[in-house]
């Protein structure tokens, strides 16, 4: 019995190993093609670039120059990191406030946040982009405010769910000992909220880093591109697409994410599970 079971498990291991290989194949294909001369990419996508098909890093250099890839990367990093930090800070404070202060405002805010989670972006995209334009939010700093506003729903909701589980006595003790609400929040409540912070940070970072439409409509894209906008820009309006540059830029767009994933895998997967339970 034991032997048979092991045999069985081994067969499954092989099955999943093959499936995993199939899973990464599309990405490998893009990497392979990024070293191929551009005219051969559409014609012979499945061939290994050797001989006259191989162009080294030529596609990379051309692509980086065409779309100013590193500027885009810088913008994406700045927007994602700052927005996530601002979202965590502001929404956790707000969630604590509306959970602890019982008033019509708190209840209203909570239900509005819940409601905003099911509103698709298309519903507000036109008015939001015009409003952001009027308020001069079309730069990487201004867009942080837009992300805070549009991302607040989910984060406030998740933080509220967690704050309710914190016993009130701890905070009251801190207040009696002479802490101001600000000290109480940062020295007592915020440390307890840390696991939720990680969950919220991961969900928001995945959204903001990959978001295309919101920055495309809000930002002044002649001056500020994010990575997804830069890649879409490569397709251009008319004429044939430079497939070589496209492949190279796709690879460069994937690398930072995969590196990040390898280092933070545990948190990412835990964050997704925790986020799903609350959502």
């Amino acid at each position, binding site marked *: 019995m034991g032997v048979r079971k092991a045999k069985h498990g081994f067969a499954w291991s092989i099955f999943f190993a093959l499936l995993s290989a199939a*899973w990464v194949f599309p990405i490998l294909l893009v990497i392979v093609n990024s070293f191929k001369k551009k005219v051969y990419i559409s014609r012979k996508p499945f061939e290994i670039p050797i001989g006259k098909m191989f162009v080294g890093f030529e596609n990379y250099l051309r692509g980086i120059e065409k779309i100013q890839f590193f500027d885009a990367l810088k913008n994406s990093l700045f927007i994602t990191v700052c927005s996530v930090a601002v979202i965590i800070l502001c929404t956790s404070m707000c969630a604590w406030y509306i959970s*602890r202060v019982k008033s019509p405002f708190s209840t209203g805010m909570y239900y509005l946040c819940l409601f*905003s989670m099911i509103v*698709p972006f298309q519903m*507000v995209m036109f008015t939001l982009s015009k409003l952001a334009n009027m308020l001069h939010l079309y730069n990487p700093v201004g867009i942080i405010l837009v992300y*805070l506003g549009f991302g607040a729903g989910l984060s406030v909701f998740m933080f509220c769910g967690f704050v309710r589980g914190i016993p009130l006595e701890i905070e009251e003790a801190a207040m009696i000992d002479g802490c101001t609400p600000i000290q109480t929040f940062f020295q007592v409540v915020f440390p307890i909220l840390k696991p939720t912070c990680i969950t919220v940070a991961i969900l928001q970072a995945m959204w903001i880093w990959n978001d295309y439409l919101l920055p495309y409509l809000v930002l002044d894209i002649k001056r500020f591109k994010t990575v997804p906008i830069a890649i879409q820009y490569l397709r251009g309006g008319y004429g044939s697409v430079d497939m070589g540059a496209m492949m190279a830029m796709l690879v460069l767009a994937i690398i930072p994410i995969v590196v990040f994933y390898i280092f933070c895998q545990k948190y990412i997967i835990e964050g997704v599970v925790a986020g799903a339970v609350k959502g």
Partner: protein
Amino acid sequence: MQKSLKRYFPVFAFPTLAAFTIGFFIPFVMGIYLSFCKFTTVTDAKFIGIGNYLKILSDRTFLHSLWYTAAFTIVSMVLINVLAFTVAMLLTKGIQGTNAFRTVFFMPNLIGGIVLGYIWQLLLNGILANFQKTLTYNSAYGFWGLVVLMCWQQIGYMMIIYISGIQNVPGELIEAAKIDGARPAQILFHVTIPMVMPSITICTFLTLTNGFKLFDQNLALTNGEPSSMSELLALNIFNTFYGRTGYEGVGQAKAVIFFILVALIAIIQTRLTRTKEVQH
């Protein structure tokens, strides 16, 4: 404590409230109002009643994209959930290398929709080239291309959620069922599935709304071609807004209908599956 905290409203609640008002509340309310107006920008709006909504009724691309989106959402939801659940069941049996497989399956989720769209465009067009076809040959190719892409992206995500659900099923329950002589299929349908119903609720919810709201992948993979035949609702709305001048009002009216549909689906779906959850 409430009282002293209340005085700190400007510090704690105001920043989020202000951003929420600018980033969500005003655009939302204005969006509803503008769907009853004729306008090219927000300052020249003229109230025209339900004219925009009437125009939608005769818009064939919208009706087509509505059915196309509905079909796409249902097909991808069923496929993703069945496959993700199957993989999750297998990966909770202690197969060697489980962690590595999980890591690999989850990875596509971190890659953005635009990048994913171009990755699959290369692969699928490469395969179709053998038959002298491309993804934009007709809308069925775009449809199945998008389904494959979404399966590849989302199976890993849903699998993670199912795995945690399955691991939370108490072992005693399964043991008890085995001792009572239940066959594996009976255990699956009468013990495991009812016990992981909360995970099923979440996953069907996520796949439904993700499918219905899909935009980036659609834009990158086929961009709605040939002639808007592979356009999902979100892209159809976008093109109405920014593709034709004078149609902004119609675009906004479509967006309102889109919002109502998403809200209805979300509410009905949660009601339906919540009632099947086991209390314990």
